[in-house]
C-alpha cells in the first residue's frame, strides 16, 4: 500500500513522517513518531485519553487521520513541560495526587491547559463541563477538578 508522506509541526518542531491513508494521528504518534504520552482508552472519541491540539484546538487524536496533519500544528503532552520544567498543572497534579493509574492524565492535562488559556478563572462547574470528554476510572474526578482550580488560582496570583 502506498504510504503518504506528511510534513507537519509537532510541539513546535518540524517533523516528517510516513503513514498509511487510514492511520489515525494517535497511531502515528504512538508508532513511528514514538510519542507515547497520548493514550488510547477507547479509540472512539469517548474517553479523551488521546487528546492533542490541532492548530491550537483540542481534538481526540483517535478521530483524526494522520494524513490530516499535513501543514498543521500538532501539540501533544510531550510538549507541555518546557526545558525540564513541568507546567504548573503538572506540578499541581503531582502535589495534589490528582492521578492514580495515569492513563487519563495526559489528556486531562492537555484539556485543562486549553481551558486555563481561554478562561483563567473558571468555576468548578465550568471545569467539570470542559473536562466532560475526559473520562477517569480511578480518581472520581474530585482531585482533578481541585487541582485545576488550585492551579488557576495560583496562576492568577502570579500574574498580578
Amino acid at each position: 500500500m502506498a504510504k503518504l508522506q506528511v510534513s507537519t509541526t509537532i510541539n513546535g518542531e518540524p517533523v516528517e513522517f510516513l503513514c498509511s491513508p487510514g492511520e489515525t494521528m494517535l497511531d502515528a504518534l504512538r508508532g513511528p513518531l514514538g510519542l507515547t504520552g497520548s493514550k488510547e482508552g477507547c479509540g472512539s472519541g469517548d474517553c479523551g485519553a488521546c487528546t492533542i491540539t490541532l492548530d491550537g484546538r483540542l481534538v481526540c487524536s483517535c478521530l483524526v487521520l494522520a494524513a490530516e496533519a499535513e501543514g498543521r500544528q500538532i501539540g501533544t503532552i510531550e510538549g507541555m513541560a518546557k526545558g525540564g520544567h513541568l507546567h504548573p498543572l503538572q506540578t499541581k497534579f503531582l502535589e495534589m495526587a490528582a492521578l492514580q493509574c495515569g492513563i487519563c492524565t495526559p489528556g486531562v492535562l492537555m484539556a485543562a491547559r486549553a481551558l486555563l488559556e481561554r478562561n483563567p478563572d473558571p468555576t468548578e462547574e465550568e471545569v467539570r463541563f470542559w473536562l466532560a470528554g475526559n473520562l477517569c476510572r480511578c480518581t472520581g474526578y474530585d482531585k482533578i477538578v481541585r487541582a485545576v482550580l488550585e492551579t488557576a488560582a495560583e496562576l492568577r496570583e502570579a500574574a498580578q
Partner: protein
Amino acid sequence: MSDLHYLSPRTLDEAIKAFSDAGETARILAGGTDLLVQMRAGTVRPGTIIDIKKIGEMTDIEEAPDGSFVVGAAVSGAVLAEHPRFGAVWPGVLEAVNLIGSTQIQGRASAGGNLCNASPAGDSVPALVAAGATVTVAGPNGRRQLPVEAVPAGPGRTNLARGEIVVGFRFPPRPPGSSDAYLRMIPRTEMDIAVVGCGVSLTLRDGICTAARVALGAVAPTVLLVEAAGKALTGSKLDDAAVDAAAAACRAVCRPIDDKRGTIEYRTKIAGVLLKRAVRIAADRVRGA
C-alpha cells in the same frame, strides 16, 4: 482498508470530480467524529476519503448585509461558537451544535456531518430545520438548494444524489423580534444521545407571534418539521391554549422507537414538554430576559 486513498482537494470543483471519479466507496470527511468511529467499528469501509476542510467555502462563516448567514458545511462547533455574531442571531442553532459531544468533539464536529450522518437523533438538525435554513448542495450536475428537512431520508440515509456534497447552510435574514431555542432530553447530564430533541424559532411583534417553526428529533426515522405546531403558535400571544395546542401537534406526529432509553409513550410525552419549554426560552430571548 488496504486500498484506501486519502485526498484533500483545495477547491470544490476538484472535490466534486474526485468524489464522482472515486465511485461508490468514496466518503466525504468533515470532522470525522462519525466517519472514523464507523470505520473503526468496520461498519463503513471507504475506498477513498475526501477531506473537505481545505476548501475555503466549506470552512467559512459569512454574514451578508441583509443579515443572512452562510455557514460552511465543515465549520466545527468550536469555530461557530467563536463567531462574534452568529450566536447572537441564532442562539438556538448554536446551542444545538454545541451540544454535540465534548470539548474535543466540538473541535471537529460539523453541522454538515451531523446532517449527512442522518441519525434521527442528530442534535443540530431540529434547530436547523426550525431556523428555516437551507443547504447548498453541489455535484456533477451543478448546484441546487434545498431545505434542511429535505436532506434526511431515514436512519443513515440522505436524499443527496450520488456525488453530491453539502457545501453550506444559508440562514435567512432575521426580522426584529426573532429568536430560537433547542432542547434535548438525555438520560445523563452530558455526552449522550437525545431521546427527544426540539427546536423552536419564532418572531414576536407587539406580543403576538407572527411566525413560528417547530422541529422534532429522535421521535421518527427522520427529523420532523411540525408545521401544525408552528401554525398553532402563529397569531397567538403564546398563551397556554396556543402552546398546549402546539404541544399536542408535536405529540401527534411522534412515531418513535421503543427502547431501553425511552419508551414510545415517554418519548411522545417528552416531545410536548420540550416544545413548551423551548417556546418559553425562545420568547424570553426575544424579550431579552
